[in-house]
């Protein structure tokens, strides 16, 4: 199996100036600017290329189903520490990296980009280029492989990627506590400053749910300290949060994702709220005007994304300042001079 056919498709598209829409399972079609261009389906380029549990590294082709990859890791007692959302059965490894999204474990374990060790990509000229590698520490050259995380396929097609994996926690336990929003935020920030094994948090409608992960003894000791009641169906609860199948995510209103400082005070926006990541991620189901949501996120020290629904054509991601926009354009031109890879998916200018 070679990436040659993908390279050829991209080179041809570049020569004729036809936009390409890079696509795996299409589970994240809803995310970012409206996809356009001819579909380049990468699912044929699939499979785990190497996996050495004791090296804590897996390398896989972009079309590898995420579920298949995770099952292989689980068979060796390991996992993708950033707990990526699938958003559907067909989610692929390449799409996962390109979207750059992390799940409930983000605040404790790190972002997807934190675990990217290397990538072999096809740039907008159809050239196959390798960056980074399969080792934990590598500072040779600019960190182009991490730059791919969250670039939504606008710089290059991620043909293969290597990510760091970690052992699955020995023990996990989910707790429920009754707390209003402000005290919940206060408690989450205070706990995060203490050596507690909290690996996920979700607050909604006066109820704070916490997940503890780690050694049996540590999880037990922390559960005793934090109080609350144990939720038996913990794993299912966190799956539903990660995959946005929880009742909170239903309803017709647009879903906003506000990434803010964990210490930001309650945002005082109309609509329903779900807080994750120890306060640093706030999901909002609301018809509030985009400006009001973006302003609130800015006040909270972060940014807002129109995650699902709503008027995508009016901008999904928070706009960049002039200096950053110029750098984004220059980088886009360096990787994809013909501007054919997923145009408009991240910003209309790219």
């Amino acid at each position: 199996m070679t990436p040659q056919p993908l390279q050829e498709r991209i080179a041809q598209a570049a020569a004729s100036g036809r936009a390409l829409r890079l696509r795996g399972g299409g589970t994240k079609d809803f995310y970012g600017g409206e996809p356009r261009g001819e579909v380049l389906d990468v699912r044929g380029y699939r499979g785990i290329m190497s996996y050495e549990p004791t090296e804590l590294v897996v390398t896989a082709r972009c079309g590898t189903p995420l579920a298949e990859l995770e099952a292989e890791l689980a068979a060796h007692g390991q996992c993708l520490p950033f707990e990526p959302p699938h958003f559907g059965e067909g989610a692929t490894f390449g799409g996962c990296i390109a979207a750059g999204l992390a799940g409930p474990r983000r605040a404790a374990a790190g972002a997807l980009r934190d675990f990217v060790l290397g990538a072999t990509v096809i740039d907008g000229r159809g050239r196959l280029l390798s960056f980074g590698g399969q080792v934990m520490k590598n500072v040779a050259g600019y960190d182009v492989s991490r730059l791919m995380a969250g670039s939504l396929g606008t710089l290059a097609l991620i043909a293969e990627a290597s990510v760091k994996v970690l052992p699955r926690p020995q023990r996990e336990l989910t707790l429920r506590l009754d707390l209003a929003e402000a005290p919940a935020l206060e408690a989450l920030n205070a706990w995060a400053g203490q050596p507690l094994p909290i690996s996920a948090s979700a607050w909604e409608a006066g109820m704070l749910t916490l997940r503890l992960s780690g050694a049996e003894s540590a999880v037990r000791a922390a559960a005793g300290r934090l109080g609350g009641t144990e939720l038996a169906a913990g794993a299912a609860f966190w799956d539903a949060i990660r995959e946005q199948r929880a009742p909170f995510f239903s309803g017709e209103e647009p879903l906003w994702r506000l990434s803010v400082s964990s210490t930001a005070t309650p945002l005082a926006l109309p609509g329903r709220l779900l807080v994750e990541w120890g306060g640093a991620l706030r999901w909002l189901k609301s018809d509030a005007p985009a400006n009001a949501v973006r302003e609130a996120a800015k006040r909270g020290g972060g940014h807002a994304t129109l995650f699902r629904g709503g008027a995508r054509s009016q901008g999904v991601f928070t706009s960049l300042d002039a200096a950053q926009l110029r750098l984004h354009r220059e980088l886009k031109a360096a990787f994809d001079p013909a501007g054919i890879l997923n145009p408009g998916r991240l910003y209309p200018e790219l």
Partner: protein
Amino acid sequence: MGEALSLERIDPARQREVARALREFLPERAVLWAEEDTRPYECDGLTAYRKLPMVVALPETEDEVRRVLQTCSRMKVPVVPRGAGTGLSGGALPPGDGVLLSMAKFMRVLRVDAVARVAVVQPGVRNAVISEHAAPLGLYYAPDPSSQIACTIGGNVSENSGGVHCLKYGLTVHNVLRVKGFTIAGEPLELGSEALDSPGYDLLALAIGSEGMLMVVTEVTVKLLPKPQCARVIMASFDDVEKAGEAVAAVIGAGIIPAGLEMMDQPATRAVEQFVGAGYDLDAAAILLCESDGTQEEVDEEVGRMEAVLARAGATRMTVSRDERERLRFWSGRKAAFPAVGRISPDYYCMDGTIPRKRLGEVLRFIAAMEEKYGLRCPNVFHAGDGNLHPLILFDANDAEQLHRTELFAAEVLEKCVEVGGTITGEHGVGVEKINQMCVQFQPQALELFLAVKRAFDAEGLLNPGKAVPTLARCAEYGRMRVHGGRLPHAELPRF
């Protein structure tokens, strides 16, 4: 190292012109050009390379930094930023025709926030100082390069520095939330924030580890972590270096991520023991330091599991630190490894390759063969958990012929690291030192893309020119040289 001592002359007319332009907004004491003042800046921690800077600028405010950059940009003068000058790859080697921009006066800790668990600091703040400020709040900054009492956070950002705890806690890139600074044109740039992500491309990841070639940083926000309640380290002896390597894989294979996992071979422990008296087992062919941290319960449980795995892997002796004093004593030897080696040899040359751990035995055998081939000794210290090797070649820099042998020795080892699927540098950076080996690690088209990334930030190539990313012409030259010398260790690599 071929171009170690540069004899290029500084152009006095240009020097006067640039110094005068900087004096328009910088005080007299902040613009150095007389040789006795600029001499201390002629090199960084890689002392084999020296060059006298044309002018040294020592701004104190962000606005002064902006104006230095604008002035240099306008006058087309190269600029090289510098922190404490502890870098080991010549990344802060001055430009003979440009301005060395010292960030040493940016020494303030601007904010330590116990609730948000962040510290906002200026780039000249030393790594260890951040943890000192955070300690009363029960917090600390995790990356701990061995030079942490001297190296600055600005330099750490520029090199993406690691340390002995990064298997569990990550590198600089995992612990920095935001940087603020300027492009070479003096345009303000703020990347990242106190939120956990930012819109658009991850320019923060690109800037960290860019060896001062993309921007000049004037402020850094770092993540602080709660200090683990307790930590204990196991010192395990092995009668064979490869067995120690296999023990590392066994620990990780058992689902344990130690807070630190370091290896030292016998020549290294013997050098260190004379210097600091860390209590190492000098009869062991290699020792492992394997640390567990967390709550009391967690550590007790994990240390027990680690001991069982290490015993099964053939450890001949194990000592668990009884208290914090003993733990620090065990680590003191590892952290003092470089200066200790400095005492048994006039000079040492530190390599920084990273390899897949499973190839450790092969690489160590290769290094031993190189010791014979070049007639030079080479003790090894090794961030075993993350595969990062620091072989230290002992030599005498006053002997040009030894220096040359050292250089060939190092080049062969680095290229071996690439051959086994690793990298030429895990945490020290490419700088000027490993620039030729970049030609071995990367294809020309990938290098071309690096150069294009550089142009996006710095169209005229004025910021830290000639470092980290070689031109294709340079690689072609290096390729010819290697073929000519008959030392083409792996002909299967793509060439041009």
